[in-house]
Each structure stands twice: as structure tokens, then as C-alpha cells.
């Protein structure tokens, strides 16, 4: 019996889909059987980020309405050997095509076959959100170091705390720009965590390669050299229960001069 985790944020554009794709892929890399479920009906794009767009035949609405079995609708990721699957959302209907009860049954069924079911939640707190959280056992809240995103994350955490079947949500802070935080132009991590007062699951530095990788349909996690990739892998390890320290935000300065500066702690 696996665990269903919903990835949500309230605000749009903070990186829910990217986080779902990368954490899911990272869990698969660690040898778990993972199913990604896109609940953003009408505006799906988890399939695009995963590079599986052109293999979709059936979708979530087809399954819910009984037009096909779950197994038929699942799209297998060829990069893995029977580890990673995607249940795509429908593009032709809208959020009201599915009810929370139907989602709950669907996720319950998927949990039988997979170690982790990651549910990509649409932005907002309406029907789409309710569908996404209906079947979840745990939640990851994604935010960026912006006041508006943190405000919405706070709202979502409040709503998640009301759902009794969901464990206390955990936080991922996405797209942190180290130099801006250092200059005090961006909210720093401690401030956000203190404000939201939930456990921090991971932080991800702003990295252009993430966008490049998404556009190519290759989750960044598959490129082990990138900083964001390591962050996502660390998040996956923390989900599995390992205790992994947070990465430092700034890259170590190299060279003799930097070492001397560090010695005198000049910043």
C-alpha cells in the first residue's frame, strides 16, 4: 500500500508541476514505483514537462467515466524500467468533470500498485484543488520567496490543516536567488519557515537549466550535475525518511584570495 502525496501551492506559476515531475522522477531513480497524476483538467502540462505528451491515448476523465481501465490510461516513462507512470489530465473537459469522491476511489486504486502516487494540483482553491486533495495522505506545499506566494501558501496550509486525512503539510521553497537573499531583497528561508511554521522539506535554487530541461521534456533530476537536480534528489530522500542536510545556497568561492577573505570573514 503506497502513499499519495498532493503537491499544491495556491498561487500559480511557483513550480508545482516542475516539482511533481522532478520529485517523482527522483523517487523512481531511488528504485520506487511512482505514479504521477495530473489533476489540472483543461490546462494539463505535467505530460509536457515529462516529455510524454505524444503518447497519451486515454486520460483521467476517461478512467473516471469508465471508458477505459486505469492500466490503459497510464503512460509509461521509457527512461525507466516499469518504475514511473503518468496518468494525464484531460485537455477537453474542465475541473467539474470529476468529483472528489471519484478522485478518492481512483487514488485508492493506484495506491495498491505504486509506492508513491504524486498528485499535481491545479492553482486555486476551487473544485480542482478539492479533487486533488481528496485522495491524498500527505501534502507538499510549494512556494517561492515572494510575499504573494507565501500569502497563498499560508491560505492553502490553513485549508490542508482542515483535511483530517492529510498529514501535516511540508514546505518546499522554490526558485531562491542566493545573491538577492543575501542583499535582503528577497525573503529569506528562516523568515518563511517561521511565518508558515510547518516543516521544511527542501529548498531549490533558481536555475536556468530547470527551464531548459522542462522545455526538452527531460526532468532536470536526470542531469546529476545541476544544483537543482541535487536539491530534488535530496527532497526525494527526505520523503523516504532519510535525514539530509540543506545545501548551502551560495556556491563555494574558489581560489586563494577567497580563502584569505574567508579567514578574515570579510563579506
Amino acid at each position: 500500500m503506497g502513499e499519495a502525496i498532493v503537491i499544491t501551492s495556491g498561487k500559480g506559476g511557483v513550480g508545482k508541476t516542475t516539482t511533481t515531475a522532478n520529485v517523482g522522477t527522483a523517487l523512481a531513480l531511488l528504485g520506487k514505483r511512482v505514479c504521477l497524476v495530473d489533476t489540472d483538467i483543461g490546462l494539463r502540462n505535467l505530460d509536457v514537462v515529462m516529455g510524454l505528451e505524444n503518447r497519451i491515448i486515454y486520460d483521467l476523465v476517461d478512467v473516471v467515466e469508465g471508458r477505459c481501465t486505469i492500466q490503459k490510461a497510464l503512460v509509461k516513462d521509457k527512461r525507466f524500467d516499469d518504475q514511473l507512470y503518468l496518468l494525464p489530465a484531460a485537455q477537453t473537459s474542465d475541473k467539474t468533470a470529476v468529483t472528489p469522491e471519484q478522485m478518492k476511489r481512483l487514488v485508492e486504486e493506484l495506491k495498491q500498485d505504486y509506492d508513491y502516487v504524486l498528485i499535481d494540483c491545479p492553482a486555486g482553491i476551487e473544485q480542482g484543488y478539492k479533487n486533488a486533495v481528496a485522495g491524498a495522505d500527505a501534502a507538499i506545499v510549494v512556494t517561492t520567496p515572494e510575499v504573494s506566494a507565501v500569502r497563498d501558501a499560508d491560505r492553502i496550509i490553513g485549508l490542508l490543516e482542515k483535511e483530517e486525512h492529510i498529514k501535516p503539510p511540508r514546505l518546499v521553497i522554490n526558485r531562491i536567488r542566493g545573491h538577492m537573499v543575501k542583499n535582503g531583497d528577497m525573503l529569506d528561508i528562516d523568515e518563511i519557515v517561521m511565518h508558515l511554521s510547518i516543516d521544511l522539506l527542501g529548498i531549490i535554487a533558481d536555475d536556468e537549466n530547470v527551464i531548459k530541461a522542462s522545455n526538452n521534456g527531460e526532468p532536470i533530476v536526470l542531469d546529476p550535475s545541476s544544483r537543482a537536480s541535487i536539491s530534488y534528489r535530496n527532497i526525494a530522500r527526505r520523503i523516504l525518511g532519510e535525514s539530509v542536510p540543506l545545501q548551502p545556497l551560495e556556491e563555494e568561492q574558489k581560489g586563494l584570495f577567497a580563502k584569505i577573505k574567508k579567514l578574515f570573514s570579510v563579506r
Partner: protein
Amino acid sequence: MNRQKQSYVTIKGTKDGLTLHLDDTCSYDDLIAELEEKLTVNEPKESDGPLVSVHLKVGNRYLTPKQEEELRALIRGKNNLVVQSIDSNVITKEEALQWKRKTEIVSVSKIVRSGQVLHVQGDLLLIGDVNPGGTVIAGGNIFILGALRGIAHAGYYGNKDAVIAASIMKPMQLRISDVMSRAPDYKTDERNEMECAYIDDDNQIVVDRLQLLTHLRPNLSR
């Protein structure tokens, strides 16, 4: 049945008028009848004397608002008498519960997040924070053992003496009774001492050191 022997109504004169002790064991109808009789007997002849205030002590009898009205009308119907107060030892359960709700301190341990509203009838003791976009409302005072970063509304039913106190006072808005104030648009310097908000003599909300409350609202000690 001889009503003269048993006296249900005792009239006493005091320096602030008359005090009527009404027996609480007889029936209401008997009481009204005797009151009517006694007042008629003792009614002064001339009607232009000064008004005499009457205090009713009804003991352990519960009077419905309608009965109270009837008593007032009966006494006012006599020359120069007007009911100043009706004092009863009993109140209904509902009134008692409402009284309790309005005066008790409700302690709540949670974080009031954006979009959430926490509403209590009496005083609120919040063990946690109010985040921006969150709202706390209390009929009485609000005490927050955390950071107030959202909206707090004390004295919701019109109590202007209500206060708001917080360990970290960084509110979006403060409201006490019908007076409102909001945070300044510029950023204030970090102060790390507990603060309180109250309505001053100019009917403005003032934020100041918590310790001042001892002098400003001595009735906070119970």
C-alpha cells in the same frame, strides 16, 4: 382563604425611595392582586407631588419580560410612583450561558492563517500567531502570545474599553469597537517588546508599551 394574614408584599421606605419586597413563594396572580390592593390603600390623594422611585426585590422569582412590563405598568399607574429597578436572584440558563460566554477568557491554540476567521464572544487568548490575511474577533479583549500580523478586532459588540495585546505587534489592521487603524505604509523599525492597543481620549487607537495597561485599564485584573 384569608389573604390579610399572609403578607406577600412588604413596603419599606429608604432615602432613595421605596423598596418593595415581593414574596417569591406565592403565585404571580396573588402577588399582583395584593400589590394592587396595597398600593391603592396607600395612594396619596394629591397627584402633583415629586416622583418617588421604587425598587422591586423579587427574590428567587423569575419574571418574564412581559411580567416585568406588567409590574412596571401597575406601579406607574399609581400616583407619583415609578419603577427604578427590578432585582431578581434568578436568571435563565440561556442568559447565564450568554453572560458566561461574554465574560470568559477563551484560550485557543492555533495559527490563524490567511483567509481564516477566529471569532469568540468573550476575551480571546490566542496561543499562536495571526498571519497576514487572518482575522481574530472578540467581544472582549484580545491577548496574543505570538505574532499579530493580520487583523484583530476587539470589543466587537461595542466595548470601547477593550484592548489588544500581542507579543509581536505587526498588524495589518487594528479595530476596537467601531474605531479602526491600519499599519503605516512605511516600514517601522523592529521593536521586540510586547505591545498593546487601546482607544485613547481622542477616540483614536494607540499602540504602546504593554506595561501601560496597568494604569489605563485597571479592571483587567480579575
